[in-house]
C-alpha cells in the first residue's frame, strides 16, 4: 500500500510539472493536441489456494501481483470540426507466483517464478458531430517471459439524431506466440528449459484470437440508460498451457491438452439508474457459452452513494457461476484414453463472489487545491471461489484533467 501511494505521488508530481508548462501556451494554439485526461492506476493483488494446474490440480496457487497503469488521453479538433482523440495506455504488472516456481522445482529460480508483464496500447478515433459517427483504430502489444502478443482493433459507432441511442461495432485480432516451457520431467532429450542462458532449442506456438463486438446503448429516460453487447470471439492455436501437468488415474504424467480452437459467445446487459439525487444503481449481467461446454452467468451490482457533492462511497458485489469445460477432471482422475485433458481449476465448475467498497473524492477546486488533480478513488475487494481459492485486491486511481 505504501508503495502504491509513493509511486502514484511521484507520477502525479511529474505530470503536475508538465501541466505547469502547458498552461503557458498561447490561446491561438487551440487546435493543437490538448491533454484531456490522465489516469494513473496502481493495484495490488494477492491470492492463495490449493489447486494449481502447474502441479496437476493440487498444490499452492499463491500469487502476488503489483500493477501500474498510465493512461493518457489527448484531444484536438480539425478544420472540419471533427474531434480527434488519441489515447495511450501503458501497463506494467510484476508478479511472483509460487505455482509457476513449481514448473521446474529442481532449479533455484525457475523461468516463471516471477515475471514482468508489459502491455502498452495506442488508439486513435475521430468523432464527427455532423453525421454523429465515431471511427477508430487501435494497436496493442503485450510481452511477458513466455508470451508475446500483437493486437489490432477497428471500431465504428453511430448515434441517433437525438443522441439517445448509439450502435457500435468493434472488430479485433490478436496474434500471440507462446514459448512452450515444459516441466523438466516431460522435456524430450535436447529440449530447452526456457531459462535465461539455456541455449537448447524450445518450441514457439501461435495463438490467434478474433473478436467482434456489437453494442446498442439507449437512454431510456432522464435517469436511466442501458447497454446491450454481443461479443463473439474465436481462438485458434495452442490454447492449452504448456507447463500445466496432468496426472492420470494409472499414475502416468503428461501436459495439459486442449482443442486447437475455441468459440466463445458472451452476451451482456448493463443498466444504470440514477435514483433520487445521491444514489446511482449500476447493474450488469452476462451470459456466456462456449464450444468447450462451459456456460456462465455473471451478475454485478454497484451502488455509488454521493455523501456530499465531492465524496462518494461505492459498495459492490459480483457473483459468477460457471460450469466446467468437458475436458476438466481433478488430480489423477483423467484416463490415458481421453483425447483432451486439463486439471486447471480456472476452467472447472465453481461459483465465485467478489465483494468490496470504493471511495471517491473529487473536490471542486481539485485535490489539495491543485485544479488539475480532479479525483482520487480507492477500491478494496475480497474474492472467494468455491474451489477454495481466496484473493484480495486494492486499487488506487488518480485522475488528472
Amino acid at each position, binding site marked *: 500500500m505504501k508503495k502504491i501511494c509513493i509511486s502514484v505521488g511521484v507520477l502525479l508530481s511529474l505530470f503536475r510539472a508538465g501541466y505547469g508548462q502547458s498552461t503557458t501556451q498561447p490561446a491561438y494554439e487551440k487546435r493543437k493536441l490538448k491533454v484531456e485526461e490522465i489516469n494513473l492506476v496502481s493495484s495490488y493483488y494477492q491470492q492463495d489456494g490449493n489447486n494449481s494446474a502447474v502441479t496437476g490440480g493440487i498444490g499452492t496457487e499463491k500469487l502476488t501481483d503489483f500493477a501500474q497503469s498510465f493512461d493518457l488521453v489527448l484531444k484536438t479538433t480539425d478544420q472540419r470540426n471533427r474531434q480527434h482523440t488519441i489515447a495511450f495506455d501503458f501497463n506494467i504488472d510484476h508478479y511472483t507466483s509460487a505455482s509457476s516456481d513449481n514448473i521446474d522445482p529442481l532449479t533455484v529460480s525457475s523461468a516463471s517464478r516471477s515475471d514482468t508483464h508489459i502491455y502498452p496500447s495506442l488508439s486513435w478515433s475521430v468523432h464527427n458531430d455532423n453525421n454523429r459517427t465515431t471511427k477508430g483504430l487501435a494497436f496493442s502489444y503485450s510481452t511477458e517471459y513466455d508470451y508475446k502478443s500483437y493486437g489490432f482493433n477497428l471500431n465504428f459507432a453511430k448515434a441517433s439524431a*437525438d443522441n439517445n441511442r448509439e450502435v457500435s461495432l468493434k472488430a479485433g485480432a490478436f496474434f500471440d506466440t507462446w514459448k512452450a516451457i515444459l516441466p523438466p520431467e516431460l522435456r524430450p532429450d535436447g529440449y530447452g528449459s526456457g531459462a535465461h542462458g539455456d541455449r537448447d532449442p524450445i518450441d514457439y506456438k501461435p495463438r490467434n484470437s478474433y473478436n467482434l463486438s456489437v453494442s446498442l446503448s439507449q437512454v431510456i*429516460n432522464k435517469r436511466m440508460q442501458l447497454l446491450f453487447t454481443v461479443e463473439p470471439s474465436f481462438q485458434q492455436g495452442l490454447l492449452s498451457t504448456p507447463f500445466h501437468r496432468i496426472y492420470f488415474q494409472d499414475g502416468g504424467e503428461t501436459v495439459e491438452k486442449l482443442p486447437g480452437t475455441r468459440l466463445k459467445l458472451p452476451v451482456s446487459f448493463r443498466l444504470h439508474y440514477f435514483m433520487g439525487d445521491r444514489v446511482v444503481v449500476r447493474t450488469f449481467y452476462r451470459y456466456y457459452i462456449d464450444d468447450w461446454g462451459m456456460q456462465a452467468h455473471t451478475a454485478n451490482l454497484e451502488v455509488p452513494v454521493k455523501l456530499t457533492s465531492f465524496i462518494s462511497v461505492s459498495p459492490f458485489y459480483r457473483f459468477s457461476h460457471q460450469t466446467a469445460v468437458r475436458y476438466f477432471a481433478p488430480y489423477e482422475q483423467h484416463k490415458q484414453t481421453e483425447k483432451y485433458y486439463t486439471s486447471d481449476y*480456472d476452467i472447472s465448475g465453481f461459483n465465485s463472489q467478489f465483494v468490496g467498497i*470504493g471511495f471517491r473524492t473529487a473536490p471542486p477546486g481539485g485535490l489539495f487545491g491543485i485544479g488539475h488533480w480532479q479525483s482520487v*478513488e480507492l477500491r478494496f475487494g475480497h474474492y472467494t471461489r468455491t474451489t477454495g481459492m481466496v484473493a484480495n485486491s486494492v486499487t488506487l486511481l488518480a485522475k488528472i484533467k
Partner: protein
Amino acid sequence: MCISLLSLTGCTTVKEYQKSRINDAEMELSARKSEKFEQNFYLYREGAAGANGGKSGGGCGCN
C-alpha cells in the same frame, strides 16, 4: 426482469439539457477505470470472458 421493466417504462426522448444525471460520471455505460485490473484477474481466474469492456480472448496467456 430488466426487459420487462423497460417495456413498462418505455423510452422517452431526452433533450441534451435534460441529461445532467445521464451524463454523471457514475452513469457511464462502461466498467470503471478502477476496475481495470479486476477485469484482468477475472480473465485469468475464470473461464468466461468478454462483453464487459475488457478482453474476450487473446492478448495474454489467460483463459
